[in-house]
C-alpha cells in the first residue's frame, strides 16, 4: 500500500515543477504576439502599422486619459482628442503648437510635427490642474 503512494508524490511534484517551468515560456510566447512597441515602453497607437500613427487622448471634466504618452521621437504622429466630459474643454500644448476648443462630445484629430526627444506638456486650459506629459524618445535600433 505504501509503495504506490510513495510513487504518486514525486509524480505530482514533478508535474508541478514542469508546469511552473513551462508557464513562463507559454506566457511569454503569448506576449510575443503583441507588438514590439509595448515591450519597448512606447504607448500603443490606435492604428498600429499606419504610416502616421494616431494616439488617443480623452478629456473628461479636467481629467486627461491617459496622463502620459510615450511616442517615437523625430516622427510625425497624430493625436485624436475627444471631450467625453460634461463641460467644454480646450486641449492645449504650447510646446507642441496645439490649441483646440472642444465642446462636449466633440473630437478632433491633430497632426503633431516631428519632436526631438524630450518631454512635452499637454493640458485642458478650461480645467487646469492636471498636466499631461508626452514623452518623445528615440526608437532603439
Amino acid at each position: 500500500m505504501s509503495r504506490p503512494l510513495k510513487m504518486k508524490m514525486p509524480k505530482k511534484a514533478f508535474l508541478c515543477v514542469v508546469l511552473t517551468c513551462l508557464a513562463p515560456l507559454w506566457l511569454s510566447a503569448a506576449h510575443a504576439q503583441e507588438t514590439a512597441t509595448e515591450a519597448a515602453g512606447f504607448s500603443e497607437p490606435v492604428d498600429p502599422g499606419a504610416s502616421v500613427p494616431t494616439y488617443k487622448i480623452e478629456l473628461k471634466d479636467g481629467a486627461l486619459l491617459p496622463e502620459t504618452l510615450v511616442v517615437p521621437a523625430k516622427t510625425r504622429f497624430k493625436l485624436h482628442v475627444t471631450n467625453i466630459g460634461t463641460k467644454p474643454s480646450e486641449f492645449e500644448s504650447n510646446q507642441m503648437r496645439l490649441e483646440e476648443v472642444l465642446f462636449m462630445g466633440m473630437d478632433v484629430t491633430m497632426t503633431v510635427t516631428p519632436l526631438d526627444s524630450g518631454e512635452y506638456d499637454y493640458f485642458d486650459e478650461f480645467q487646469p490642474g492636471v498636466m499631461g506629459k508626452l514623452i518623445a524618445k528615440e526608437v532603439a535600433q
Partner: protein
Amino acid sequence: MMGQVIFIVARESVEALLVIGILWAWMAHRADARAGKTWLLGGIVAGFALATMLALALVGVTTFLGAAARSWFEIAMLSMAAVLIVQMVLWMRKHGRTLKREMEGELDRHVATSNWWGVFALAMIAIGREGSETVVFLYGSFLQLQSLANFLSFFGSAVAGLGIALGLFWALQVGARFVSWKWFFRVTEWMLLFLGSALFLTAMGKLLSKHLSAFDLPGWVYATVWDTSGVLSDSSMFGSLLATLAAYRSQPIVWDILMLALYWGTLAVLFGWQKRRFAATRIAPA
C-alpha cells in the same frame, strides 16, 4: 468651478483689453479723439458679433466654413492682427510726436481714415478670437447649471472675471494719465510689438502643424533649439501669460526662431525706413 469661471474670463480678456486699453489711452491724447473712439467702439461691437459667430461654429450649431477653411481663417486673423499692430505702432510713432499739431492737411486726414479702419479691424479681431473661446466656455458651463444658487454664483463669477479685466483697462487709463506720456507711449509701444510677435508666432505655428504637416520639411526645421521648461514652462500660469503676450516658448524649434526673426527683422527694416523718412521730411522745409 466658480473660481475657474473668474480665472478663464479674466485671462481670455487680457489680450483683447490690452490692445483696446492702449488704443483708448492713446486716443485720449489726440485732437480727433472723438472720431477715433467711435471707430474703436465700432470694432468692439463687431468683435462681439464675430466672437458669437465663431463660437456657434465651435459648438457645432452652424457650419461656418469647414475645419480646414476655419483654420486658414484663424491664421489670417492672427497674421492680420500682427500686421495691424505693427502698422498702428508705426502710425503712432509718426503722429505721437507731433500730437495735436498734426491733422492739418487734407492728405493727413485721408491717411487717418484708413488708419481708423485699422483700429476698427484690430479691436474686432482682438475680441473676436479670444472672445469666441470665452463664449464657448461660458455657454458650456451655463448648460451645467442646476439650481438658482448655481445660476447666481455663475453670473457673479462671470461679472467678477470681467471686473478683473476691466480693472486692467482702468489701470492702463490711469497709467496714461499719471505716468509721463512719453514713458507710457514708449512702454505700450513695446507691449504692442511683443503682442504682435506672439500673434504672428501662433499663426505660423498653426500654419506649420495644420497646413504644412503633410509635407516633409527638412528635419532641422523641427529641431528643438533650447529647453527652458525646467526654469519657466510655458504651461505654467506665468509662462503661458508670457507666451500669449510676448511669444515666450520654453521649447522652441528652429521654425519658431525663424518666424520670430522674420517678424523682428521686418520691423527693424520698417523702423529704419520710417526714421530716414522722418529725418528727410524734417530737413526738407528748412
